[in-house]
């Protein structure tokens, strides 16, 4: 399975990618929404996108809206991974087309639980034991 990890923090991209790769994902990083759209437009369409909210150039909500506006990317599951925890923001993200929402700080177990709920936990991986 493939995952696109979108966050302006290299540290956070590395943490999220490390967790997902521990579950067997192939990952690619993007520093903001526009860079992530470039990855999709070049044909690397992931099963999952983990998306920060507050980013320069194009924020997470704009990215979610852009992905949902393109039927070719309908199969991409969108999971917000963000510090934005206000109810109104969560509702806004889900209304725009995000499937799940993880609030920072998170644990690998929390990511595993969300992936299991989404049916995106690779069968061979062991939840809660990332690299």
């Amino acid at each position: 399975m493939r995952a696109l990890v979108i966050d302006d923090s290299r540290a956070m991209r590395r943490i999220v990618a490390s967790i997902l790769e521990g579950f067997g994902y192939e990952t690619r990083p993007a520093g903001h929404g526009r860079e992530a759209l470039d990855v999709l437009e070049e044909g690397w369409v992931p099963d999952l996108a983990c998306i920060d909210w507050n980013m320069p150039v194009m924020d997470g909500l704009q990215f979610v809206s852009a992905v949902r506006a393109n039927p070719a990317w309908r199969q991409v599951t969108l999971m917000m991974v963000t510090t934005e925890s206000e109810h109104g923001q969560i509702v806004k993200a889900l209304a725009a087309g995000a499937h799940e929402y993880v609030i920072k700080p998170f644990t690998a177990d929390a990511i595993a639980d969300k992936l299991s709920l989404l049916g995106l936990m690779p069968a061979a991986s062991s939840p809660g034991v990332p690299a």
Partner: protein
Amino acid sequence: MSAPITALIDGETVTAVAGEVWSALVGEEELLLPRAVPVDGPSSWVTVTGPWDGVVVLTCAASGTADLARSVLQLDDDEQPTAEDVDDVLRELANILGGNVKSLLPGPSALGLPETGPAPLRAEDEDTCRVSASWRGHDLAITIQGASEAPATTTTEVPK
């Protein structure tokens, strides 16, 4: 104008938030020990804009920043993080601390993008909540400060 930060959040709550962030990002076994000392070192911060306007600042003793980046990035003990790594880690820690503090304040509020450098701190007043702690012997401080007046840099928390 909103109530001062001291009426909205207390040091104990900030300490609990910081402990949770440290445990998740720095390491499950990593403890923040209370330590009431002025902290001098690099700062990172995010602004909060809403019913309460202000800034959430993380200041870490310079001696601890590389160690902190190494822990967050899960580098080997002999691996030296770059200056960019250190800045990035400090920014993300401030971002997550700020986001979690924001969630405890009246909303809706917006969080700015995290920055590093000389923090927009003012001299301590009633619209300031500050906690200091020690991590692996390195001092650090988290300051939540209102933006009701023009900011001025303090000399005790922020290096020139």
